[in-house]
């Protein structure tokens, strides 16, 4: 009893802090999105819900609807994020699996390598790539020598040999590169907890290594995969500087760029806030889906 009280007291400041800043910030966005703009283009938040003006929200809705002016951006963003998520899964799963099950003594080093990127800020790493991928950059030369450009051109995901010249492939790969560790770490944690005996049991019962992976390991790592995917999908949907740095072309602009464009300049800050609200609602649905499947899984586990 007293112990739980102690923990409650200790956790309270951080919880209050998080809740307060989440709620205040969110309410500010709502108030700006439901507010107005002066003739000098300053947004005037409407703090009182009775004064809320839904004009901008309606505008934002019609913009992101099929045929609206932001519709192509919405489609592109969803496509990029889903491709990036699929690539993260394909690239990240083996790494997490290896680290959790086969790394043995080198596990520490593998984990260190996974955490290493966090030592340098995301933006700085992206900046480094803008130099490496510049036409005379080292990475560009290596990729060219290996024929990767040609391959990408053949696959139809790249046009020409300039990686920074508005290529969707660069933006997607940069997203994968940037967020991959966030996918691997929770997946690793989940795989690490996986009961080894279950795999042995499946083998004893005659499953081939492949079968036991498909029918035992993969289903058991579902929660880790989902957690990892949600963790990377949320920031990817709102990301704008990866696109800014890696392409800067209207052909690859994402919803984050549109919002950033509205918020950074001009008379449409309220529209930017309204779009932010829509994006948040979309992501909330995404999150709820994840939570529901988690809960279903927990129930199943409890039932078993």
């Amino acid at each position: 009893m007293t112990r739980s009280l102690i923990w409650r007291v200790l956790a309270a400041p951080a919880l209050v802090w998080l809740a307060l800043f989440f709620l205040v910030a969110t309410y500010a966005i709502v108030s700006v999105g439901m507010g107005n703009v002066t003739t000098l283009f300053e947004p005037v938040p409407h703090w009182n819900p009775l004064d809320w003006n839904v004009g901008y929200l309606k505008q934002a809705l019609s913009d992101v609807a099929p045929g609206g002016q932001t519709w192509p951006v919405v489609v592109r963003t969803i496509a990029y994020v889903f491709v990036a998520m699929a690539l993260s899964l394909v690239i990240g799963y083996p790494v997490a699996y290896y680290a959790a099950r086969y790394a043995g003594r080198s596990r520490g080093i593998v984990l260190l390598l996974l955490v290493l990127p966090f030592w340098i800020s995301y933006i700085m790493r992206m900046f480094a790539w803008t130099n490496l991928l510049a036409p005379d950059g080292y990475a560009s030369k290596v990729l060219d020598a290996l024929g990767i450009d040609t391959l990408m051109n053949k696959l139809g995901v790249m046009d020409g040999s300039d990686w920074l010249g508005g290529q969707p492939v660069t933006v997607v790969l940069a997203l994968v590169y940037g967020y991959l560790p966030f996918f691997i770490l929770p997946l690793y944690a989940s795989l690490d907890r996986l009961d080894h005996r279950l795999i042995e049991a499946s083998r004893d019962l005659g499953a081939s290594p492949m079968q036991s992976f498909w029918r035992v390991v993969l289903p058991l790592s579902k929660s880790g995969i989902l957690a990892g995917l949600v963790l990377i999908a949320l920031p990817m949907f709102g990301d704008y500087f990866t696109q800014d740095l890696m392409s800067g072309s209207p052909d690859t602009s994402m919803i984050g760029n549109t919002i950033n464009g509205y918020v950074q300049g001009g008379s449409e800050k309220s529209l930017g806030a309204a779009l932010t609200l829509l994006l948040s609602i979309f992501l909330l649905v995404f999150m709820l889906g994840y939570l529901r499947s988690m809960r279903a899984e927990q129930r199943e586990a409890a039932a078993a």
Partner: protein
Amino acid sequence: MNDASTGDEGEPRDGERPPAQHGVSRRGLLKAAGGLALGGVTAASLAGCEDTTTPVAAYGAAGGGGRGILGDPTAGGPVDASGIPLARRDYPVTLPRLGDPVKAGKPETGGELLIYNYADYLNPAVLKEFGRLYNVSVRVTTFETLDEAFSKLSTGGLKFDVIFSTPDQLSRLVGRKLIQPLNYDLIPNLRKNVWPEAAEPFYDVGPRYSVPYTVYTTGIGWRNDIVDYDPAKMIPVWDAMWAAEQYRGKVQLLNDYREAIGMGLMHSGSDDLNTERPVLINASVASLENLNRKVGVKVQISAYEALPAGQIVLGQVWSGDMLNAVISYLPKGLSPDTISYAYQEVGGPVFNDVITVASAATKPVLAHHFLNFILDNKISLQNFIGYTGYQPPLNGIDAALLLKQGLIPKGLQTALVTRDAYANGNAYLTLTTAGQRLWEDGWTRFQAG
């Protein structure tokens, strides 16, 4: 907005309105907006807003009551429906004077002089020199865009002494009382050193609030060692952008909605850079979309770095950036003569930036001294050639001499702004509220790809 073809997109977005309200005329909405902001707006000033390319006479005169802008009888000039001054070369604006300028006296010493400016737009050596002279430390806070600067200033949370800006921002800054009228007795260098055209500008008759900082043109910059045609020979020069198909992905379009859409306008033969006609703006956006399909533009403003590095080989650039590229960003082994610049001599954008003193300044007299210091011939040359690449409009800066001394490469002679070009150039000026939205909407459409 979704229905670009109807053209009538100028409705203000404030207030609750259904997204598709094409039946309402712009005039009607402007009237509504004007009524909100000022009360009695006359038909004459509304007529002016119908086509701001030829704004009406001074608000005071149009209003009939002799009242100037924002109630200052000594102020005047064309305004939009909500009272925002719309200065044009042919229609000068006297900004309302809010309060009295600071009295001459000893400059404040000690502590910090706080400056709000773009990044890399002041030579640190110059700031150090000023600090040494006046026994003060100078601190620069930077902003990315003027809009960001205005937003942050208008919250009242930021206190500066000196604010760098552009002429089209002055009406907003004055409207929010963010800058103070200047005591020009404290800035003798303005009359002594500055080109008369720039010292007596049409956007700030008097002048009352500003001194000019730098002059620049917008044009085409390119690597003449890579690009196999000569943009300087094209008429208009902007055609060089549309001709760059073979340099796909290495062409810069300025990340600035006025400049980008303005270029589309000039490309299609219009020279009204402040038009508010939806038809023209839509045509410009369409031509930019066509440009993007052809050459895959990079929307950025970093040509000063990207051009010498070869990340772009041609682009829409500001003249000062080309000089900056040569002064500060030339990689080893690349000759300064590889960078060329050309601009549209008749009707192309030529304009200047300004320096102002914040109304919240704690060291207003010292701030005036700083403005005067920046307009000193020697100091401004050091700022220009030694760092920023942006030319001050001073009589003492002898372009011919700089070329002769080799301080500016011959290929970039065109990046220097002549008095003549400045006096006759075109400029991006304040638009009406509705007009600005038209431009911004067009830009958003373009950026959505």
